[in-house]
């Protein structure tokens, strides 16, 4: 029987959760890298036992860890992330220019074909790539230098490049998103980039429809339809049907359209998931009820999924990289909370149960479907 491996990054270490295809009983290993912030752990689609982890510390900086055995053992690889050339400045919170400074890796996106090739999204926002299994990293500087970089400004969590989507049909096309600059696309494997934010409206910036400056929280894509993108913005859930050339709002009947995560069902490209969060500053579920919302129509019409989720006194958040789906049938959906719970649904969201409930605050969840 096939199995599932969930890779959970937390504020104090990484955890690897494994189950068979029934997804009822889970083994938990960890903490790996105890005491370090693990922003993201992700496996190579080309070799599921090859994992990469971003290990970070406010004291001791960035490490990248690599596993060749599905997370049982790890080895540190290269941690030198140096911007290409003289990096120049972006805007600081007060609008003054501030030199680019590397802080941490938020997201690791392994190539679908080559276990040694990985993209890294970093703070201050830039995209790096390794082709030697993480030993060395080179910046794809065309993004930072495409022209709008000096106008980028950090969101509350820092100026992070947090989303990397690789088009499975076109190796030259990559989508990325930055808080708070917006979404960008390259069609030539990272040499040149353009902002893809037409249709986004953000009342929090001087020109609500500006080319850049939008606080995009997350973008999701279904591999069978790479031109269709779904976005959870600071406010608004958005959809694009033309690879980001234009966006339209699909928040519909959501009780609040603020949130961080968004993901797509593995088998139904029009079925999407979000977790609405109260904001601007509270960042917890409305009315203390933790609810995932599912749309089977690609947005606009949303259904609250509550079975098995706490419906009173719940004040956790679900951060932008903390939702994932598996490829089994029925589709499994997973998310982690800042309260340390990882919830799973083995029936596409109809019912939920915690896999584990007392981890450190969860920063990221990724899921591998194993043969």
């Amino acid at each position: 029987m096939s199995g599932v491996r969930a890779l959970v990054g937390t504020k104090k270490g990484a955890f690897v959760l494994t189950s068979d295809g029934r997804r009822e009983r889970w083994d938990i290993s960890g903490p790996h890298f105890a005491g370090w912030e693990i922003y993201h752990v992700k496996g190579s689609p080309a070799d599921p036992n090859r994992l990469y982890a971003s290990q970070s510390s406010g004291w001791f900086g960035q490490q990248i860890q690599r596993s060749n055995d599905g997370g049982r053992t790890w080895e540190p690889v290269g941690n030198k992330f140096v911007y290409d050339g003289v990096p120049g400045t972006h805007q600081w919170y007060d609008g003054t220019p501030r030199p680019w400074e590397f802080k941490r890796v938020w997201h690791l996106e392994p190539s679908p074909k080559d276990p040694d090739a990985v993209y890294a999204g970093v703070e201050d926002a830039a995209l790096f790539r390794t082709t030697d299994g993480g030993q060395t990293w080179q910046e794809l500087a065309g993004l930072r230098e495409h022209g709008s970089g000096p106008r980028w400004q950090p969101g509350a969590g820092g100026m992070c490049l947090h989303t990397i989507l690789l088009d499975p049909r076109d190796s030259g096309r990559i989508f990325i998103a930055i808080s708070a600059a917006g979404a960008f696309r390259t069609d030539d494997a990272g040499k040149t980039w353009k902002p893809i934010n037409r249709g986004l409206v953000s009342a929090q910036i001087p020109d609500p429809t500006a080319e850049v400056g939008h606080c995009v929280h997350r973008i999701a894509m279904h591999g069978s339809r790479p031109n269709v993108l779904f976005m959870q913005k600071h406010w608004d859930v958005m959809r694009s049907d033309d690879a980001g050339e234009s966006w339209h709002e699909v928040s519909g009947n959501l009780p609040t359209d603020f949130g961080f995560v968004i993901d797509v069902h593995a088998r139904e490209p029009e079925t999407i998931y979000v977790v609405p969060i109260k904001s601007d500053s509270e960042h917890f579920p409305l009315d203390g009820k933790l609810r995932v919302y599912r749309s089977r129509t690609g947005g606009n019409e949303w259904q609250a999924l509550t079975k098995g989720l706490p419906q009173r006194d719940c004040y956790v958040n679900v951060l932008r990289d903390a939702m994932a789906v598996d490829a089994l049938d029925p589709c499994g959906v997973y998310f982690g909370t800042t309260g340390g719970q990882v919830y799973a649904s083995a029936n596409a969201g109809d019912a939920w149960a915690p896999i584990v409930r007392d981890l450190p605050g969860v920063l990221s969840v990724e899921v591998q479907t194993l043969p």
Partner: protein
Amino acid sequence: MIRVVLPAHLRLLAHVDGEVKLDLAPPVTQRSILDALESRYPVLRGAIRDHATQRRRPFVRFFACAEDRSHDPPDAPLPDAVATGAEPFLVVGAMAGGC
């Protein structure tokens, strides 16, 4: 023989138990200790000093002989007690709160 004490996070990272002992020619300085330390444990590159600037990371401190040497020039000779191994050179994660 120089004795270096690393904080727990870096001992874990470098798979080090107890003190690190280094043979160094005089003059013994912060830079010569850190160069030798990073040469033996490459994983520590970037964890104590910034990769690009080689400056001490903001929340890393250097203590020796009960004094804070964090702001000393990196090429300033360290006390004889450190150079002879009578006293260790301490790399410390700053007491900076956090969560």
